[in-house]
């Protein structure tokens, strides 16, 4: 068994007869911080759902942590772009975060002491400990994003997947979140999906550019030519930071 956290081999995926992904191959090694960028409708979300085991490829093979994605999902922390729950659902931040500890065998009302300990530690880490008892509907966009991140982290995942973490929050907070992700990356492999190519390249150590097919995958290769091919020359601002 290889050490690759994610291995995608020659994957095609059609959606309603439309080819969304074509011959995509990608390997993510342990400890990487990979950014997947590309235009809207370029197949980013589809690729992500393949990784999460929510979709199956029409051709090719997807393996996560050496297993089928559906079997690995409990070891994958997933932070969605938008919260899918009703904002008026009667539940506290703490209870939402604790849901990340659920397993099919969880019975009864109470979480274990260990569950609470991990949840408290993670809430400290993402700086939401002070709003632990607040209702989920009374949070700002940035706070909600952090709760979703905490919920993904309490499951102690080997791989963390974030869908457009910059979509819903203000600029200062975005930076905070990425600094936090960089810290987490010391222990966890991270994949971030984003259309915001400039912002993401400052943090990740490799970029995969996706527009139906995979055009490149490294920060160094991410030159103007590729961006033009991918976006069609409508990029206004690309910020490149190389150490």
């Amino acid at each position, binding site marked *: 068994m290889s050490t690759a956290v994610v291995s995608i081999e020659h994957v095609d995926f059609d959606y309603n007869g439309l080819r969304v992904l074509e011959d995509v191959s990608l390997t993510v090694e342990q400890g990487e911080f990979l950014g997947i960028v590309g235009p809207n409708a370029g197949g980013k979300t589809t690729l992500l759902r393949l990784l*999460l085991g*929510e979709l199956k490829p029409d051709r090719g093979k997807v393996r996560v942590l050496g297993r089928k994605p559906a079997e690995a*999902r*409990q070891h*994958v922390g*997933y932070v*969605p772009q938008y*919260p*899918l*729950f*009703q904002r*008026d*659902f*009667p*539940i*506290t931040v703490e*209870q*939402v975060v604790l*849901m*990340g500890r*659920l*397993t*099919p065998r*969880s*019975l*009864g*009302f109470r*979480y274990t002491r260990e569950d609470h300990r991990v949840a408290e530690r993670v809430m400290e880490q993402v700086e939401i400990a002070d709003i632990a008892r607040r*209702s989920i509907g009374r949070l700002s966009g940035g706070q909600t994003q952090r709760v979703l991140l905490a*919920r993904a982290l309490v*499951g102690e995942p080997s791989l963390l997947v974030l869908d457009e973490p910059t979509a819903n929050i203000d600029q200062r907070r975005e930076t905070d979140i990425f600094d936090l992700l960089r810290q987490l990356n010391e222990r966890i492999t991270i994949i971030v999906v984003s259309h915001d190519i400039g912002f993401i390249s400052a943090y990740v150590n490799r970029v995969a550019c996706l527009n139906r097919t995979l055009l490149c995958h490294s920060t160094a290769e991410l030159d103007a030519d590729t961006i033009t091919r991918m976006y069609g020359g409508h990029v206004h601002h690309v910020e490149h930071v190389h150490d």
Partner: protein
Amino acid sequence: MTDGMHESFWAALIAFPFLQRALLAGWLASIGCGAIGSFVVVKRIGFLAGGIAHAVLGGMGIALYLGFDPMAGALLAAVFSALLVGWVTLAWREYEDTLISAIWAVGMAVGVLFIALTPGYDKDLMSYLFGNVLLVGKQDLLLMAGLDVLLVAIVALWYRQFVAVAFDERFAAQRGLRVKLVYLSLLVLVAMTVVLLIQVVGLILVIALLTLPSAMAAHYIRRLGGMILLAMLIGMALASIGLLVSFQQDWPGGATIIIVTGIAYLLSTLWHAWRQHR
């Protein structure tokens, strides 16, 4: 004047076992309603619950026609219609609206047809549709108590999984939870609650008792657990008031309970809105 009427209700309550049974039936129904209704409200499946409730008449009609106990028929039909509605919503989500409307109406039509074909049963149709709380017997109470125990036990045992699936199905699946199984179980519990309520308010009025006490509780409590307990208490109080009014005015019990519940919900909503905009 009012005092006198109250006195006569209390006196009657002590004197007449049928009133005691009616009150007890109202309370037993409120327990199931609070527990399951709260999930119906937070998951916003009131329409599904309505479809399940009405389809139950089909099973009751067939049971009557075949000479079985209509309550046993109701229970079977409830589970069947819950699974049917669940299957429809899982497999054809885009046509959910139409298909549930179809199940809703066809289920009732089947019930009306079979009851009509059964000799000597025309009067019962009204009591299935609108309840007849003053005719609740000891057997019915035992069945209701048994259903309550079962409902509460199942909700208690899988509480966190029900909450997780009601809150965010996608994340629940990501945690490896059997989302479809939990969802279908929830619908079956809704169906069992409907059967619990048939005796009290009948299956047309069921949906109000299933949702309104919980919706009122949500005005005051922002935790699901507390919401469930408060909904049970609100249900009990409203069923008691409804019975009292229906006894005094000689109005039909089920309809009176629903009207009292509706008025209480309206007042609670206005109060809640006023508090929010103050």
